[in-house]
């Protein structure tokens, strides 16, 4: 009697666990952590729901991590504990760190392993080069892609007698003076941004940020932006600040640069095209505005800018089923319909040529609120990416960005000259690079 009781309970347990197995067998579950937050994060979550509704084999669980930096650091912590997600959205600046870790499943290899045919040449080269190995193999899937733009208030420019947005920095300065002359308090709402002022500025001018072609050719790179046109540009910004042609607008100070523009306080603002949708919502038709490519200095030949934003990495240490699910999800994101959903609900640009062509075919960019976003692609594809405009492949780049920002702030405060500030930033960022190279001693950039 006792024995049968035991055996029946064992049987019951087996049945239960069997039921559990068959239930999970219905759907293969895998996790995806993303960094975008706010409205953009909601749209990411919506893509997950759309994927889950589109098929019944896989179930993706998407968890927002509230910020790019958090997404990466939480993933690392989880990875060390063996609890990491299958897919993670990692930002552009973390690319070199993830590449060197080696703990990922290159997406091009994964797609081939699961016989999913992807036309890799279909990606805009300015986008895919950023996430590809030296041999051109794509390690992560380009996802939310942007590039900086100049946002301008049409009425304010017209009041200052300017009919076309300034395409050179010389014209830009003249515009600032002219706008100020009309009595506008804040002509240019500015916040120091490495991404715009240093990285994309250097790309657009075809000047190096670091040796070894911005780090692509080896770990023993050194920063050189304290010797290029970038210095002159930052000195100009300092001068404009001193002459009150620009105003510092940051979140800490109340209104950030974007909101200062959207609330008609400042006439000009530089920001990612990803903000295009949000600016449109904030302005809400109260004044006329548009975007243009970031200016270049006279006498220089404009080059392409590179992609900002984030890509999707598939991490190592997961089961084949989970990888298959991840592959299906990435394939789903690549469909024209998904791309249209993504770009129309955010300000991001399509990452594939066919996606862009399809949108153009239906005059997507002809009318507000999408009008102007095609200029981001124009900026990204202005020239074919060369060795200096492929992207940036520098370790510890997040720290290097922080060095730059802090030193520029010090120079704007008047603690030191801009040249001194940039020299210090370069020296300290080189220490970071050096340490990075030593941490990965004996390894090569893939």
């Amino acid at each position, binding site marked *: 009697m006792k024995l049968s009781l035991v055996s029946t309970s064992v049987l019951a347990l087996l049945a239960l666990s069997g039921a559990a197995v068959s239930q999970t067998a219905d759907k293969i579950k895998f996790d995806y952590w993303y960094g975008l937050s706010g409205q953009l994060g909601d749209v990411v979550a919506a893509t997950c729901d759309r994927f889950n509704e589109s098929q019944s084999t896989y179930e993706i669980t998407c968890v927002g991590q509230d910020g790019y930096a958090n997404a990466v650091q939480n993933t690392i912590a989880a990875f060390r504990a063996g609890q990491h997600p299958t897919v993670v959205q990692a930002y552009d600046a973390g690319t070199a760190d993830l590449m060197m870790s080696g703990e990922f499943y290159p997406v091009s290899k994964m797609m081939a392993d699961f016989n999913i045919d992807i036309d890799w040449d279909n990606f805009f080269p300015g986008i895919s080069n950023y996430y590809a190995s030296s041999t051109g193999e794509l390690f992560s899937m380009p996802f939310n892609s942007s590039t900086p733009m100049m946002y301008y208030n049409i009425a304010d420019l017209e009041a200052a007698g300017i009919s076309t947005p300034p395409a050179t920095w010389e014209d830009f300065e003249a515009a600032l003076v002219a706008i100020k002359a009309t009595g506008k308090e804040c002509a240019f709402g500015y916040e120091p941004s490495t991404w715009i002022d240093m990285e994309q500025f250097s790309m657009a001018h075809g000047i190096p940020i670091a040796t070894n072609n911005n780090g692509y050719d080896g770990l023993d790179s050194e920063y050189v932006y304290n010797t290029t046109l970038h210095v002159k540009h930052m000195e100009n910004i300092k001068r404009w600040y001193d002459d009150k042609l620009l105003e510092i607008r940051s979140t*800490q100070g*109340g209104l950030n640069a974007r909101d200062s523009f959207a609330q008609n306080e400042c006439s000009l603002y530089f920001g990612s095209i990803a903000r295009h949708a949000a600016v449109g919502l904030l302005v809400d038709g109260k004044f006329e505005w548009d975007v243009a490519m970031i200016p270049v200095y006279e006498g220089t030949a404009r080059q392409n800018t590179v992609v900002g934003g984030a890509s999707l990495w598939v991490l190592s240490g997961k089961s084949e089923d989970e990888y298959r699910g991840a592959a299906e999800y990435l394939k789903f994101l690549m469909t024209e319909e998904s791309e249209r959903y993504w770009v129309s609900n955010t300000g991001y640009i399509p990452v594939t040529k066919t996606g862009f062509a399809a949108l153009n075919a239906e005059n997507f960019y002809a009318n507000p609120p999408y009008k102007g976003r095609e200029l981001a692609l124009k900026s990204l594809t202005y020239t074919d990416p060369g060795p200096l405009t492929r992207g940036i492949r520098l370790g510890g780049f997040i720290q290097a960005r922080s060095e730059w920002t802090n030193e520029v702030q010090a120079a704007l405060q008047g603690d030191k000259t801009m040249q001194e500030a940039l020299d210090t930033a370069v020296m300290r960022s080189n220490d*970071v690079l050096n340490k990075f190279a030593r*941490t990965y001693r004996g390894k090569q950039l893939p």
Partner: protein
Amino acid sequence: MRRAYFKNNWVAALVVAPQLLIIFIFFYWPTSQALYWAFTLEQPFGGGSEWVGFENFQYLLSDGRYWDSVRISTIYALATTALAMGMALTLALFADRQLRGYKGFRVGLIWPYAVAAPAIGLAFRFIFNPSAGVASYLNQAFPDIWNPVMNGDHALTMVIIAGAWKQVSYSFIFFLAGLQSIPRSLVEASAMDGARVMRRMWDIQLPLLTPTVFFLIIINITDSFTDSFGIVDTMTSGGPARGTNLMVYKIYEDGFRGLDYSGAAAQSIILMVLVVALTLFQFKYVERRVHYS
């Protein structure tokens, strides 16, 4: 004095075990991890690490930036402690005098301690906002006199005030308890001798409060070294130009944002040694030397 003890050691071990386990998991294990990382160059994803001895420490100690951070942290610790304790003592003396409505004040003054640091940071960020907040009136009267967004000293002042505000309640509770434990008869006797309020405070109450004062100094300093993160993170993110980059925030910035695990580990070891030293100092000297009678 007779000591009570368990006859059966196994029972004792069993009773203590959960607590020991918690301490081990949440303190000793992470500490040993950090200690190991501090002497290596650790790859973030754990792909391997190289033993480098004291190099991480050498780099830090020869780094002007690190000493800037130490200097700012010291200023922050001393200033918040002085400000918080000064305020708390004043308030406690008044609450202790049983003026009208003192019961309400007593409860009300303890509340701020329950407010989370980031919430305090947000509130003070608004108050000190140069263009939109309460402080903007100051800027209207005297243009450009207050700008924590661009001026590191202003930003540090702002963070100190917010940090002190948070600490006032804690010190207040201890001061009030200390004051109430002073025998009423002493105060009353001096009153009968003709000592007025201020005289009684200086000659009777404050000297008898010294143990509390020293205890609070140590606790407040320790706390301001370790517990300032939330305020800095929401108010300034360590800026402008590292003007508010306190040691604990720098650890976060370097380690979690910058993925420099080894450098951050070395910094946390230094911070830990500092806090341990302060605590030892308190146990060894302050508690023994300062007492009544």
